[in-house]
C-alpha cells in the first residue's frame, strides 16, 4: 500500500521547514546555562505552561497544562515568566541564519520558518539534503540550541518532516518517498487539518494522511472546500502554497492584541488595554506610512469566545487621539459586566498608502491638522525615550498597575545595564552567568 507513487520527480521543488525544539525553554537554557537539562517551563506569568523543556516533557508535563497541576506532577519544576524580549532576539537570529542560504524565507511564527531552496544546489555547491543539514548545524552552533528540520517538495510535507523526528531531527521526504511518511501519520496531525475536517474524514473511514492523499480527485473536489483540496494536493507532492518572504512595508492589515493574566472584567482596565492596542497599531501604521480606513476592536472572553465590532471611518486616520471616541463607543457595545475577559485587540484594515487627505465639506480641518502635528512630536519623544513614553490618558492605567498584574518580572526586566532605560535595551541576549 505504501508503494503509491505521487511524484515521479525527486525534487520538483525543495522546501524546508525549521521548527525550534521547545523554543522558549531552549532560549532560557542558553541565557541561563546552569538550567540546561533541568525540568523547566515558561508561562509562569499566565499560570499556564507555554513551553516545557524536554526534561520536563519526559516527566509528563505538557504545554497548556496549568502551573498548579504541573507542580503536582513534578514538585521540583522550575517555572519561569515568559521573556519575549529574549525569545524575539533569538527568533530573529534564527531567520537571519536561514536567510544566509536562501533569500526566500518565511518567518511563519516566533519559532518556525519555511525556506524555499529550489535551485540553490549549484549556488551553494551542495545537495538539498546537505543544505538542510547545514541550516540545522549553523543554528545549533551559533545560537546554542537545537531545531528540527523537514525537507520536502511542499510546505505541508516539509512540516510533516520536521515533526517526524524531534528534537534535533532532520527528515528528508523526496517526491518518490512521500507515501512511506504518510502511512502511519494520523490525518489530524497534518498541518491545516482541524477538528471539523478530522471528524468528517473519520466518518468516511479515513484515519491516516496516506488514506486521505489516495482519495480520488473527483471525490475530494466534490466533498471538500478549497483549503481541503489544497492540502490534499500538497500531500501528494504538488506545491500549492508558496513560501512567502515577508514584505515588511506592505501590510494588508495591522493587528495588535494583548492577553493578560489574570483574566478580568474590570472595564477601566480592559478599556486601557484596548487603547494601548490602538496606540501600538497606530504607531506601526505611521511607521510604514499607512492609513487605515476601517478599524476592528474585539474582546476575547475566558472561554476564547470573541466579541468584535467593526467601524468604517469617513476618512482614514492613524491618530489615537481622534479615534478615542470611536473605541469608547465600540467598547460600550461589546462590554458585558458579567463576563470575564482574557484579551483585547485592535485590527486596522483597508490600509492606504496615499498621503493626500481629503476633508469633508462640513469638517474643520484645523483640528485634525493640529493633531497630526502633535503626533509628529509624540513620535519624536517616543523615539528618544521609548515606545509609549508619551501616551493617552485612556491607556495610562497600565503604567500605574499593569506591571504589577503581570506577576514576577523576567530576569532581563530585572537587569538594567548602565545606559539602558526601562523601554530601551541593548539588542543582544544577555547570558546570565557569574564570572
Amino acid at each position, binding site marked *: 500500500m505504501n508503494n503509491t507513487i505521487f511524484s515521479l520527480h525527486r525534487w520538483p521543488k525543495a522546501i524546508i521547514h525549521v521548527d525550534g525544539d521547545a523554543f522558549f525553554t531552549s532560549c532560557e537554557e542558553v541565557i541561563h546555562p*546552569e538550567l540546561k537539562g533541568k525540568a523547566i517551563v515558561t508561562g509562569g506569568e499566565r499560570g499556564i505552561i507555554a513551553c516545557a523543556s524536554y526534561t520536563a516533557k519526559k516527566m509528563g508535563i505538557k504545554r497548556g497544562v496549568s502551573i498548579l497541576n504541573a507542580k503536582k506532577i513534578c514538585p521540583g519544576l522550575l517555572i519561569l515568566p515568559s521573556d519575549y524580549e529574549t525569545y524575539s532576539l533569538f527568533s530573529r537570529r534564527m531567520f537571519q541564519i536561514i536567510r544566509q542560504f536562501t533569500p526566500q524565507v518565511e518567518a511563519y511564527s516566533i519559532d518556525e520558518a519555511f525556506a524555499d531552496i529550489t535551485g540553490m544546489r549549484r549556488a551553494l555547491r551542495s545537495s538539498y539534503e546537505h543544505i538542510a543539514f547545514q541550516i540545522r548545524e549553523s543554528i545549533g552552533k551559533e545560537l546554542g540550541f537545537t531545531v528540527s528540520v523537514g525537507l520536502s517538495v511542499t510546505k505541508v510535507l516539509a512540516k510533516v518532516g520536521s515533526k517526524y523526528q524531534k528534537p534535533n531531527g532532520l527528515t528528508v521526504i523526496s517526491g518518490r518517498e512521500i507515501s512511506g511518511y504518510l502511512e502511519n501519520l494520523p490525518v489530524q496531525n497534518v498541518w491545516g487539518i482541524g477538528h471539523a475536517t478530522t471528524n468528517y474524514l473519520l466518518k468516511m473511514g479515513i484515519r491516516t494522511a496516506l488514506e486521505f492523499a489516495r482519495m480520488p480527485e473527483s471525490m475530494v473536489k466534490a466533498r471538500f472546500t478549497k483549503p481541503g483540496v489544497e492540502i490534499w494536493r500538497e500531500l501528494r507532492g504538488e506545491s500549492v502554497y508558496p513560501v512567502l518572504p515577508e514584505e515588511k512595508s506592505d501590510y494588508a492589515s495591522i493587528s495588535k492584541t494583548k492577553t493578560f493574566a489574570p483574566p478580568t472584567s474590570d472595564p477601566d482596565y480592559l478599556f486601557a488595554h484596548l487603547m494601548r492596542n490602538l496606540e501600538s497599531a497606530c504607531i506601526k501604521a505611521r511607521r510604514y506610512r499607512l492609513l487605515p480606513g476601517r478599524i476592528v476592536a474585539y474582546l476575547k472572553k475566558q472561554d476564547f469566545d470573541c466579541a468584535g465590532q467593526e467601524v468604517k471611518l469617513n476618512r482614514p486616520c492613524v491618530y489615537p487621539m481622534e479615534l478615542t471616541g470611536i473605541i469608547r463607543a465600540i467598547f460600550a457595545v461589546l462590554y458585558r459586566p458579567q463576563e470575564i475577559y482574557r484579551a483585547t485587540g485592535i485590527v486596522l484594515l483597508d490600509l492606504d498608502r496615499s498621503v493626500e487627505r481629503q476633508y469633508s465639506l462640513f469638517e474643520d480641518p484645523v483640528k485634525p491638522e493640529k493633531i497630526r502635528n502633535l503626533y509628529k512630536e509624540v513620535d519624536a519623544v517616543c523615539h528618544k525615550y521609548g515606545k509609549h513614553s508619551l501616551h493617552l490618558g485612556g491607556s495610562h492605567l497600565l503604567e500605574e498597575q499593569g506591571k504589577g498584574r503581570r506577576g514576577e518580572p523576567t530576569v532581563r526586566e530585572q537587569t538594567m545595564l*548602565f*545606559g539602558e532605560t526601562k523601554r530601551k535595551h541593548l539588542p543582544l*541576549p544577555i*547570558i546570565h*552567568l557569574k*564570572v
Partner: protein
Amino acid sequence: MKTEKVVVTSTHGRYLPVVGHIMAGFPTPAEEELQDLLSLDEYLIPRPKSSFMVRVSGDAMTEAGILPGDLVIVEKGRNPKTGDIVIAEVDGEWTMKYFRKEGKNIVLEAANTKHVPIHPQVELRLAGIVTAVIRKYHQ
C-alpha cells in the same frame, strides 16, 4: 567639506568617520575616505548573529583590563586558541579565564595573581570566546 555629513545615522547605529592622518599644512582627503565607514556596532560586534553579552561580576581578569561591572561580548561557535579569553564551565563552575593549550591539556589562567590556574579534570563546557569589552562612564 560638507559638515552635516560628518556624522551619519543609520539603523545600525551612528557612523563615526575614520578621518585620514593630518600632514601639517596640507588639507586632508577626508571626504574621499568617508565612504568606508565602520559603525561602532560593526566594530565591536562583527558577528552579531552569534554574539551575546555577559556582565562581569568577578575579579579574575582585572589585570587583563576586565573589571567587575564591565560588559563583555561573547561569541559562540568558535574554537578557542591559546591566548583567547573564554567563558567556560569547569567541573560545575563557570569562570572567565585565559585559554591555554599545553600539548593535549587545557589550562585556564586568570589575569589576577590571587587565582590559581585551573586544569579541568572532568569536563570543559564552553559558553564562548570574549571578543570585546565595553565600559561606559557616562549616560
